[in-house]
């Protein structure tokens, strides 16, 4: 059992195990379910993730309020028909994250990861990684357990709710989970996984939650797109050997404290940030 990143690493190192193995064993102990049953449940999650990441790539769907829709399709077409600055990987990853966010905003089926608002980041990150490196379904599922382990630690020691911690706690934690998953899927050590997660959180520390009209649409979908890029680049930085000077557990604590010190107007209340701009107010009056 582990309560924080330090304890997780100690178990991984003393038993010579990957993060996903330790997470699976913890789940088995806590629930009494077999490893096989737990993996089967995770496979159901993956199935929904694959569907939501692809659904809006080729067709335009609109959110319930009509504030967003069609963004995933635009990015997909743009990257297919143009020589882009960021290239295929980045553009495809953004398109997939936008797809899940659009499915979510149009009342389609998604997997909260860790929340519905941040649900686009992890699926896109693992699928994009698996595609580039030809990883199979079991390796992707391993990555999902790695991601869940990171999320468990954050939920236990801080928060994964925008209403308590701002967007850093949703899209930031989503990216931290995804970056650890990528690192482990690509053979990185547990230490490297936690460095990747730390870097991902550090990159967006303090990000506020200021949705227009209080709806999970704008800027949420865009922050899922930037969130997956945060996950990919943080994974690459960590795999290149860059370490977070501040240990993972302290980064999480800092995020929690920053979240608590953010005013309520910047925590999902739609009273500050973009939501409180003249245009934000105007859009709110139009859709509510």
């Amino acid at each position, binding site marked *: 059992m582990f309560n924080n990143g330090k304890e997780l690493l100690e178990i991984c190192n003393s038993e010579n195990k990957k993060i996903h193995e330790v997470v699976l064993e913890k789940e088995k102990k806590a629930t009494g379910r077999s490893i096989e049953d737990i993996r089967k449940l995770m496979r159901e*999650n993956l199935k929904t993730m694959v569907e939501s990441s692809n659904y809006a790539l080729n067709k335009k769907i609109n959110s319930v*309020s009509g504030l967003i829709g069609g963004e995933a399709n635009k990015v997909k077409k743009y990257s297919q028909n143009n020589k882009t600055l960021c290239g295929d990987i980045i553009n495809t990853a953004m398109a997939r994250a936008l797809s899940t966010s659009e499915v979510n905003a149009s009342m389609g*089926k*998604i997997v909260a990861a*860790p929340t519905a608002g941040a649900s686009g980041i992890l699926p896109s990150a693992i699928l994009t990684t698996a595609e580039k490196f030809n990883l199979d379904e079991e390796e992707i599922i391993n990555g999902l357990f790695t991601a869940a382990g990171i999320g*468990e630690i954050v939920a236990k020691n801080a928060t994964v709710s925008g209403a308590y911690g701002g967007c850093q706690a949703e899209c930031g934690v989503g990216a931290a989970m995804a970056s650890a998953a990528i690192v482990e899927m690509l053979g990185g050590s547990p230490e490297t996984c936690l460095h990747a997660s730390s870097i991902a959180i550090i990159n967006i520390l303090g990000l506020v939650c200021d949705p227009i009209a*209080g709806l999970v649409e704008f800027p949420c979908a865009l922050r899922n797109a930037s969130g997956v890029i945060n996950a990919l680049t943080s994974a690459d930085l960590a795999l290149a050997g860059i370490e977070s000077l501040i240990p993972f557990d302290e980064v999480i604590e800092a995020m929690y404290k920053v979240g608590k010190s953010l005013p309520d107007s910047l925590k999902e209340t739609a009273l500050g940030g973009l939501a409180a701009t003249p245009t934000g107010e105007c859009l709110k009056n139009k859709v*509510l």
Partner: protein
Amino acid sequence: MKEYGVFDILGPIMIGPSSSHTAGATRLGKIARQIVGENFKKVTFLLHGSFAKTYKGHGTDRALVAGILGMDPSDERIRNSLEIAKEKKIEINFIETDLGYEHPNTVKIIFENKNKENFYIIGSSIGGGSILITNIDGTKVEFNGNLPTLILKYNDKKGSISKIGTILSSNDINIATMKVSREGQIATMVLEADSEIDENVLKEISSIEHVFYTKAVNPIE
């Protein structure tokens, strides 16, 4: 510190856009249906706080209606629930209101049957899809629907609780939590069990003298 499992972090599989405004709302509606039964013609939703302000954009209206029609939070028909209710000739109304000192995401659901008799449930969506039922037709309660739940009303007489406990244990049902409150001579018990409470057990309990209301609510997705 609360313990989390992998599926608390990755999950639920749900219809978007919001775990509290959509998934939680569906669960509230579904639990209300389990308590009230299926024999209703008209349902009025009194929406409070954030539910009142953002229900259209979050699809809270569709989610609540899906719930009272018996759908789960991952049901893709949630999107079309208003139309489905219309087909079933159930009249639906939404009223934005102030229910007083309640959680921001609270709804009072008033069911009306064909004889124009009313029955209401009040509940809140408290985050991440979790819910709390707080009032059943005037009786204050508090349960979250995660475990099989038994709701009983009886004329408060000595020994009632021990009789109920005996029936449960003889049917191999372990009591997880139990709350008893009393107004006048009428006691209300909300009991959460570790395993499902079936029709036969319910029948046995309702045959106890002084017990005049029994309802079992099974956990939902």
